[in-house]
């Protein structure tokens, strides 16, 4: 495994409370370089290394920025989604905590590229303790002229406002996040209108995840092409992964794409507690899919994981050892969605409720074949017809479990 620090390069290298400290390690060099470039050259650069939206949607980021630039409007918004609510996912927390100025610098570059006049950071309520850090960093940027009017004398204006959530997983969904920013309960709305055309306050909006943003300044300064040298195919560069569950050293790791799952779990995260065997691994948080230990030698890339029936998603990797049964794990996962569904569309609101009832019946050994059939049908209806991505993916885990562990789904079969 190559030891490469790219996104985590600045971690521990400067005093996060001081812009001078950041400047002393070359902070804002990327922005200074960016404003000498054509905005389209920057989005092309991002596209050339195939950066996929790191929040989980995997949308081509370079394309997103060039589309956002093409949208007409003189009051465009740039929003940073810092609402990482997926379970087993805390990589954005580390990026905010250890390198706040890089994130702000990235957003300023983003504003320059897409032509945004205002930026919002929407951070989950759980990270409220980092508000002072970000607010102070923003204040210092303003003092130094990196935010505000006529940035770097290049005649573009941009400022950032910080919004906080208050404990709602669904607010990570773009339209829900926007509703929350508008001062409402964060329930998703239908699309269209699409966010890029009519986002927060009906303004054209470009929305990216913390990790996606954070890549940009490093990429601009990567003259040797180190980033592009990692990975292959559509999986270029590095990825932040959060590993937790029954591992010895849970944490956030930056890995080059192509690192195997085994290397991540055993080398980086210290292996499974007490050397237990692995029951299952959930990739991408509560809305992710699961695999058994046969996935260990699969390289961590978008393509290979998909081939193995799972997805990168949020970058979370939850390792469950043999002490927990598949069914118990599914019930824990279901509790999450039973709590976090926004409740507005029928399949997700009612479907989660009934799937929980049937999983509980399974645990009691009382589930009938009809129950199992109904459960599968509800899961499919949820994924096919829910209003937003939450409902669509809420039963990913269950549906992949049905595929990987068919023996669990027997009538009366509690195990």
């Amino acid at each position: 495994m190559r030891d490469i620090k790219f996104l985590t390069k600045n971690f521990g290298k400067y005093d996060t409370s001081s812009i001078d400290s950041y400047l002393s390690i070359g902070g804002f060099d990327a922005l200074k370089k960016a404003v000498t470039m054509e905005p389209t050259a920057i989005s092309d650069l991002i596209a050339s290394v195939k950066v996929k939206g790191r929040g989980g949607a995997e949308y081509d980021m370079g394309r997103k920025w060039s589309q956002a630039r093409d949208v007409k409007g003189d009051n465009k918004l740039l929003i940073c989604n810092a609402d990482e609510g997926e379970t087993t996912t805390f990589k954005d927390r580390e990026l905010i905590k250890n390198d706040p100025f890089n994130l702000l610098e990235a957003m300023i570059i983003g504003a320059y590229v897409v032509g945004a006049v205002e930026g919002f950071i929407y951070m989950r309520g759980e990270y409220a303790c980092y508000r002072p850090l970000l607010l102070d960093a923003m204040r210092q940027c303003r003092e130094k002229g990196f935010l505000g009017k006529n940035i770097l004398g290049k005649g573009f204006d941009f400022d950032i406002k910080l919004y906080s959530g208050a404990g709602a997983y669904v607010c990570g969904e773009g339209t829900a996040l926007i509703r929350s920013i508008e001062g409402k309960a964060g329930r998703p709305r239908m699309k269209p209108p699409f966010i890029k055309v009519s986002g927060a306050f009906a303004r054209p909006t470009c929305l990216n995840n913390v990790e996606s943003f954070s890549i940009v300044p490093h990429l601009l300064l990567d003259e040797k092409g180190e980033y592009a040298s990692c990975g292959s195919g559509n999986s270029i560069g590095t990825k932040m992964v959060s590993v937790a569950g029954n591992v010895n050293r849970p944490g956030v790791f930056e890995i080059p794409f192509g690192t195997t799952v085994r290397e991540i779990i055993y080398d980086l995260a210290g292996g499974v507690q007490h050397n237990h065997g692995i029951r299952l691994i959930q990739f991408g948080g509560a809305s992710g899919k699961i695999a058994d230990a046969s996935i260990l030698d699969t390289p961590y890339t978008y393509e290979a994981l998909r081939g193995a029936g799972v997805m990168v998603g949020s970058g979370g990797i939850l390792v469950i050892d043999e002490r927990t049964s598949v069914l118990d794990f599914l019930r824990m996962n279901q509790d999450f969605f039973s709590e976090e569904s926004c409740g507005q569309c029928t399949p997700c609101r009612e479907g989660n409720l009934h799937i929980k009832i049937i999983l509980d019946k399974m645990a009691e050994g009382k589930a009938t074949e009809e129950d199992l059939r109904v459960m599968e049908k509800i899961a499919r209806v949820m994924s096919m017809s829910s209003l937003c991505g939450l409902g669509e993916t809420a039963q990913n885990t269950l549906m992949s479990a049905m595929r990987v562990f068919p023996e669990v789904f027997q009538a009366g079969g509690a195990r």
Partner: protein
Amino acid sequence: MLAAMTKEYPLSQELREKIDRILDAHERDYTQIVNILMEVQDLNEKHYVPEPVAYYLAKKLEIPVARIFDCITFYGQLSEKPRAKYPIQVCNSPSCRVNAVNTVQMLEILEDLLDIKLGETTYDGRFTIETTSCYGACDRAPAVRINGKVYDHLDSREKIEALLRSLQ
């Protein structure tokens, strides 16, 4: 019938001034309502947004009180009902729960020390034990969150006891 139930001023001058300061810090921007509510809620020892406070905010921010109520009931960290002074929140998501040895044991110790079960409040109204969705401290388990602060690596009875003693 349509008439009001109360005409007295239900908020003390002192509380109103505190709320006004929070509103001013957010430039009386109604779009910041979620964050305003988070801060206003903590003015109350029981960490909730009482009804008259919501009406006061609605008036000051010129938004319908129904929208504020929607927010209070929608966001997990906000409450319209009084809570304990120290609501002890234990993560209910798989990444913590699969660490049964740690998390379940921590819960048992908490229940034992406080002499309450999950979902109950101590007789003096100081502590409740409640569950919550993942708050992104999966790598710091076993952990609890109390009034927004995460207390991590609570892997012994002594550490948990010391934590409870520190909360006065």
